[in-house]
Each structure stands twice: as C-alpha cells, then as structure tokens.
C-alpha cells in the first residue's frame, strides 16, 4: 500500500468573480501563472499545477495574496477554499454553470463590500465544551449537525456586544464566532465606509471600556456562501 499526493496536472481555483476584463499578471501558490476561465457571466481565476498544493503557511499567504490582488481589481470577488482543485477547464465550466445562480447571488451580496473583523477576549464565556460528548450519534452527519448547533448557541452574548450598535448602520452582514475564549465578529461593510466604521468602533470601544482588536479590510472570506 502506498499513498502519494497526486501526480496528474490539476487546476487550482483561487477565486470566482463576476467578470474580469482586465488582464491579470499574477502568480499562484507554486509560482504558476494565473489565468481566467469564463463561463455563464462568471469568471474563475485558476492556476495549473502538477498536484494539489500542500497546506503550509507560505502557501496560505500566497493564496491570500492572490485573492487580495483580485479584490483590488474587481468590485466583487468570492475567495475559493484553499486546495480546491479540478481536473480541467471543462470540469470547471461545468461547476460554474451548475452553480451559476448561488454564485451570482453571493457575488451580488459582496459587491463593493469588504470584511472587517473585530476580536475580543471573551472573559465571560465558559470553556469550550465538547458538544455531544458521551452521546452516540446515528451518523457522522448527525454528529456534525450537533457540533454546528453547539457553535451557534455559543454565539449568543459576548464581550463585544456593546460595540455593535455603534456600527450597525454600515453593517450589511454579520458573522459571530466564539472559540477558545476569543469572540470574533466579522462584518461586511461598503468599501467607502471603512474609515467611518473604524472611527466609530474605536470611539465606542474607548467610551465603553471594551478591549478589542479591529483588523481589515479583507476580501469577504467569512461571507459569500
């Protein structure tokens, strides 16, 4: 028995955009030149590689750099999960055509918007529990559903709650996570409102005495699915 990491050429997908008329002169995770494959008014930015990329920090950084560069060129970009590789252009076109409606809806939701991320130490939260520990689940899917429900329950109420009303006027979508004593709030805000959003957030945090860290703007990694 042997295990290998792949031997045939694959198309590594970095992002999906609505349309990309401008030429891109970017290189990917393996320094491969990137190209645009269009189908159904959608465009995917891909690179041809000998095998699927290894999950390393350096590879994550290169993947992120590509997505950021694209976000600077087009108003709407959907980052694709790291490591998504397809067998060829025909397979990619088939996927784009099959998922045209949800992809276009997702692109509309992130168009002209960026992600801002707010983090704080969640002192009041209980230590992360192992959901379903001791229970037997009928299937792996049931186990994952139990974990997802537990994660959703943990989101209710966190140390950053007092800050959120101050920026709600700019927030078009919100995702909240609480893991290992850290609360993270991801906001989707219009690109032109980033400065006002940051000012309001810092001012409110100082007034409320809440310790937090605000980072961004980023491409919409937490949104668009």
């Amino acid at each position, binding site marked *: 028995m042997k295990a290998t990491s792949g031997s045939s050429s694959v198309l590594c997908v970095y992002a999906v955009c609505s349309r990309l008329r401008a030429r891109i002169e970017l290189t990917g995770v393996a320094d491969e030149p990137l190209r645009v494959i269009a189908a159904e008014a959608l465009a995917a930015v891909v690179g041809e590689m000998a095998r699927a990329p290894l999950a390393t920090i350096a590879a994550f950084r290169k993947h992120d750099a590509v997505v950021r560069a694209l976000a600077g060129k087009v108003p709407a970009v959907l980052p694709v999960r790291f490591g998504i590789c397809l067998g060829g252009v025909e397979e990619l076109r088939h996927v784009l055509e099959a998922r045209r409606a949800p992809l276009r809806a997702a692109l509309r939701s992130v168009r002209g918007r960026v992600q801002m991320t707010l983090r704080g130490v969640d002192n009041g939260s209980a230590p992360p529990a192992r959901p379903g520990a001791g229970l037997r689940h009928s299937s792996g899917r049931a186990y994952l559903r139990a974990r997802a429900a537990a994660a959703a329950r943990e989101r209710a109420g966190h140390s950053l709650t007092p800050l959120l009303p101050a920026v709600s006027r700019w927030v078009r979508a919100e995702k909240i*996570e609480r893991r290992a004593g850290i609360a993270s709030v991801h906001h989707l805000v219009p690109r032109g409102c980033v400065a006002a959003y940051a000012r309001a957030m810092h001012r409110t945090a100082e007034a409320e005495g809440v310790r937090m860290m605000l980072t961004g703007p*980023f491409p919409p990694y937490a949104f668009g699915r």
Partner: protein
Amino acid sequence: MTRATSRMRRPRILRNDGGSLLDLLDHVLNQGVVLGGELVLGLANVDLVYARLWVLLCAADRVLPTAAAGAMERSHRRAVRHGTVGP
C-alpha cells in the same frame, strides 16, 4: 488624472502586506482547507485498487447552515426590504 485619483482612493485592501498570521489562519478556517491525496493498494508490485481522496477541514457550522445563521440572514433581508440599509 481621474483614474489616478480613483486608484489613490481605493481601500487598503489593495496592499499586499500579508496581514497577521492570526488573520491569515482565521480566513483559512472560515473557508476551510481541502487536502487531496491518492491511495493505491497493490500486491506484488501490481496496483489493484486506486482511490483519490479529498478531505475537507472546516468548522462544522461553516458547512452545515444552522437555524441561527438562517434567522440572521432573514433579518438582514427584511432590513434591506424596509430600506434601513443601503448598498
């Protein structure tokens, strides 16, 4: 001239400074990571079974939509319909 001004006004998202490791890993975990591999079972140097494997590493609530997430999105859609939020 207009084009140059427009470029100057683009948000900081254009800068490719990489960001912090925390942000980088957060983005990766938000999306998930796909790991691929191939498995070949053989006997006496003869390949008998070939399997191509893909593993998705991701938070469960990112791939399985929950009722809470659905409620939040419905709330946002209502707000859009009532004109309380813009583009």
